[in-house]
């Protein structure tokens, strides 16, 4: 009985390590080198009880013009991505099947609606597909997070292209944040400079 319990416990510990190790291997040793894209972004500063303080980012673009397709809420879709003339990431197309060519990211579909954010100039006849890109958290030391949030808010109020998320996009559609840059400088360095 003791041996069975011992084996079961060791298996439990291995199971507890399995997911983190799987993630580390997938990120650090990908079959194909990831491509780095630069996404415009805004930010707010919330808290996760287990993982600590983070800056919630709102990576852009989070919509494409309506192409007549219908997707259910929360559907897992493939977003084909590319770069615009400024070198910033764009989403070209949403699809339910994995694209054969080019880079793509797996996104969660939200809804199709008019872009009401620009209230006064909203075109009621033009609808968009809205979706969530799978990278919206940038974890930070809890002392730095409020400062970072303020810095990001100050910068993005004027121009969202001053706050850039460098994202590694892997060939299987997964993406992770590599760096958060403000005015071309990594966030931590930017905060250090700001304090001086």
């Amino acid at each position, binding site marked *: 009985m003791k041996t069975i319990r011992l084996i079961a416990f060791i298996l439990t510990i291995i199971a507890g*390590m399995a997911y983190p190790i799987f993630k580390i291997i997938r990120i650090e040793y990908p079959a194909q080198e990831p491509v780095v894209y630069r996404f415009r972004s805004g930010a707010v500063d919330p808290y996760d009880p287990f993982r600590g303080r983070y800056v919630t980012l709102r990576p852009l673009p989070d919509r494409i013009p309506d192409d007549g397709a219908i997707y259910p809420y929360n559907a897992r879709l493939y977003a084909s991505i590319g770069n615009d003339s400024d070198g910033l990431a764009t989403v070209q197309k949403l699809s339910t099947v994995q694209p054969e060519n080019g880079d793509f990211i797996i996104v969660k579909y939200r809804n199709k609606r008019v872009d009401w954010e620009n209230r006064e100039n909203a075109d009621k006849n033009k609808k968009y597909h809205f979706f969530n890109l799978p990278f919206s958290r940038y974890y930070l030391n809890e002392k730095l997070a409020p400062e970072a949030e303020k810095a990001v808010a100050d910068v993005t109020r004027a121009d969202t292209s001053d706050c850039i998320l460098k994202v590694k996009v892997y060939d299987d559609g997964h993406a992770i944040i590599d760096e958060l840059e403000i005015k071309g400088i990594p966030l931590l360095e930017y905060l250090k400079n700001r304090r001086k």
Partner: protein
Amino acid sequence: MSRKNYKFMEWLLNELPVLREKSVLEQEASERLDVYYRKQLAEAPSPQKYLSGVLSAFGALLIGLGLVLLVAFNWDMLPKIWRLGIAFLPLLAAAGFGIFTIAKDKDHRWREASAVISMAGVVTLTSLVSQIYHLDGTLESFMRLILLVTLPLLYIFRSYAYAIMYCIGIFFLARSDNQWLNFAYFMVPLPFLIWNLRPGTSNYQSAFARWLMLPLSLFLIILMKKQSDAIFGLAAFSAMFYSGGMFFRERGVSGLRNPWLFGGWLGITLLLLFGWGARSGISDSYFVTVVVGVSLLISIVFACIPRNVEKISGVIAMVLFMVCAATISEKQLISWFCHGILLALGTANIIQGVRRRRIISFNAGMLQVALLAYVRFFSDDFDLFWRAIGFMTIGVAFVVANIILSRKIRNYNEEEVSK
């Protein structure tokens, strides 16, 4: 095997000299009883044993929480490889601690601490990796992963502290639409709790299992999503806890050790008073049908071993309530039906209380009838004067009825003694 009542044994041991002195018991029989019950008491699990278990689990919990907070601080001044290395340390330390506990067959304090620290180790590792790579993901998916991979700890260490954390953690999954997956999460700790309810386990263990079944059942009711379905779930669980609570009361389990009885009674009373407001026909959810069906079946089993009018009346009341909620759509009619059932149940409890000279059953019935009278007749249509008179009348009725019943019980006991 019936549950051992150690307090009664202590009382009896104190009584033995008196019984000998009054020649109720012979010397030899008294000595035999004395030896027998002293041995039983010596073998009894001491409250200190459980207290030290609780304290060691609490200590381990604090260590675990400390670890999680240490992680949440975010050590971004360290290089990534260092942080990744550090992330594994708590779980590796917990593994060593757990292996030592199992290999040396340590007692329940070590087992509790091992389970809690191992869980904290998994939480720390997963959190740190998420933090280092800025991984997305909801709290729900995080908790689902943690509960899934750490669940064996419950059975490996037979840990009550882990069971409590699991029952809290499971509520993070409630927002998910996948009812059957969540049902699986509900089912997995159930054998552990049921095992603790079997005859022969200590009072503390079985009381713990009874308490923990309440939040687990609440989780199932929350999973039903629609208010009308949840009402059916609440009715079925109220019936189950009421008859289950009665079942354990018959075996000498009462007060705080038997929360099912009060929980079930409260559920039945509130549903019959107000629950009819959420009526909406028969549920088309297969999940709801299975949960309600199984709960009712368990209620019937509890009510029939051994058969008892009080237990059965609670189950019948809830079945009738469900029939009314499923078939009657007219608001006035269903309210009359439900209140009629409550009146019958309250009256039955009063009668049972008088017949069996049980003051708790009597007062439970009185309270049901009084609440019904208040809800039915003391609405806004009555002004303050009449409401005041009504309250006082019910209060006086309570006091007088209790005095009469107490006297009756005392007279009966005196008659029994004089016989």
